[in-house]
């Protein structure tokens, strides 16, 4: 890709990423914040593409946009409306100061450090390479990661699981409960008259 297209893409995606992130900061509604987060994540996925990391970019969209943001929306919808504001805590002023210091430090490091000879090479066949190194060099971290994901899965289910008595009651079980506790003796219920009996006037049963 030529310089012009690359520049255009970088600045547009950078604006999208930072703009989305800043809008999270100032938006009043938590659901809007998640939507802005999605915009920011899509910008980052685009930046990965400018860095020729297409596997990571696709995974970014798959995990962050398709799963994590949806999970967050779910969590928000499970809490009542009163809790859905996106306001700041009392410590935001001192936090801002700390963040400003961190920003100065990191920016200084990023811009001022001599990063050595800059190479401009992209990996090809990343998916294959990453996959192979995952099960060769990084097999132990890979296994630990698998265990971690399983543990997180089980933990999340265990935490979010409701007690049985709060769980959904279905018509059938409700009916079974009713049947068990009913005090009406079926024989006490009046039988409607048979065909031979006269049926002038009022409804029976």
């Amino acid at each position, binding site marked *: 890709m030529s310089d012009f297209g690359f520049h255009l893409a970088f600045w547009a995606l950078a604006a999208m990423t930072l703009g989305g992130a800043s809008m999270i900061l100032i938006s009043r509604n938590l659901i809007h914040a998640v939507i802005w987060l999605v915009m920011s994540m899509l910008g980052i996925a685009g930046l990965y593409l400018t860095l020729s990391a297409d596997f990571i970019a696709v995974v970014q969209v798959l995990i962050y946009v398709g799963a994590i943001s949806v999970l967050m929306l779910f969590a928000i919808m499970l809490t*009542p409306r009163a809790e859905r504001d996106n306001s700041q805590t009392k410590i935001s002023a001192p936090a801002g100061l700390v963040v400003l210091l961190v920003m100065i430090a990191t920016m200084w490091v990023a811009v001022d450090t001599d990063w050595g000879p800059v190479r401009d090479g992209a990996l090809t066949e990343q998916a294959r390479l990453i996959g192979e190194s995952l099960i060769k060099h990084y097999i132990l971290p890979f296994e630990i990661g698998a265990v971690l994901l399983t543990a997180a899965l089980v933990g999340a289910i265990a935490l979010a699981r409701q007690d049985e008595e709060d769980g959904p009651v*279905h*018509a059938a079980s*409700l009916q079974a409960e009713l049947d068990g506790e009913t005090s009406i003796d079926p024989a006490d219920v*009046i039988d409607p008259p*048979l065909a031979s009996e006269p049926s002038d006037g009022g409804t029976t049963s």
Partner: protein
Amino acid sequence: MTTADDTRSMMDDSRLAMQGTIEALDSGDGSEPVVVNLGPQHPSTHGVFRLKVTLDGEIVRDAEMRIGYLHRSMEKLAEERTYTQNIPFTDRIDYLAAMSNNLAYCLAAEELLGVEVPPRANAIRVMFAELQRVASHAMANGTFINDCGAWHTPLFHMFRDRERVLDMFEMTCGARLTTNYMRIGGVAFDLPDELLPTLEQFLADMPENIANYEALLMENEILHARARGVGVISPEMAINSSLSGPVLRATGVPWDLRKANPYSGYEDYEFDVPVGEQGDCFDRFLVRMAEVKQSLRILRQVIDNLPDGPWLADVPLHARPEPGESYARVESPRGELGFYLVSDGGPAPYRFHCRPPSLINLSALKEMSIGGTLADAIVTLGSIDIVVGEIDR
């Protein structure tokens, strides 16, 4: 009668329903029930009827029926018209079973007037009441499958049968839905010549059609999953709520007025009363399917033993019955349909009251739907087979 307060709260509710805002009722235990108004404009309420459900997630915690959107004050209007003039009202009470309504009203008026109905008229009445049952059950089962989410296919197939029944109505009395066919003392017209061959052809075709529906629907796993064990009501509860018709018979109670209190010569025909076992939506569907077959059986016997003779007794158009009261009931496709008439000796009834099966059957909906999901409530409503014109009158 609705009071002013009721009307005001109804208007408040409907304004909320129209705005569709999400209001939260925090019950304090962390869950947040949501009140959803199904209707008055909703694809599954089969008319203008409102079901106000309180949902916890997808689970129905409370259900409240709001009726009256189709109220046309028929019972009051009927007090100003002669007994014969009231027959068209009965068409419009249950517009999917006009013949059964005609019949029930005429039976009540005949009891009041002491009229003897000629045998041919009785046979014709039975014929059309059973044809009406076939048409009405086709509609009920078709829309029930639709409420289960099928894309109109079974509905259209069943409408094909209903269409043929309505064609027969049209060739007999000129109208398809609001037939106004029965008269006090008989029926308005004799059968046209082309009716019996058409009916023969219909009876010949129906077994194959029914076999097709059974092949499509009876073993359908999705339909079983949606309708079995859903909207269950016990026979005791059904009797205590005075349910009738297929909803009652699906619980296993063999109660059918055509057997229990025969009218119009039903005692002369051989037929069985299908009853279900578990009282769920699927049993109601099955009972209706089986009843269609029994109706065809009765129709066969009616054609074979159709008596000759007059089809209308001699009843004056402005009959003035002696002061008194009468109640006549028939087994309409939806259940026990009764008409209660009081005469003060004048040409118009002093009191005209209808016992609509839809209204009484609907009263059990809350019992059936609480604890199930929203989708179950819709299926249950569909399986009760209400006609809103009958509920509100």
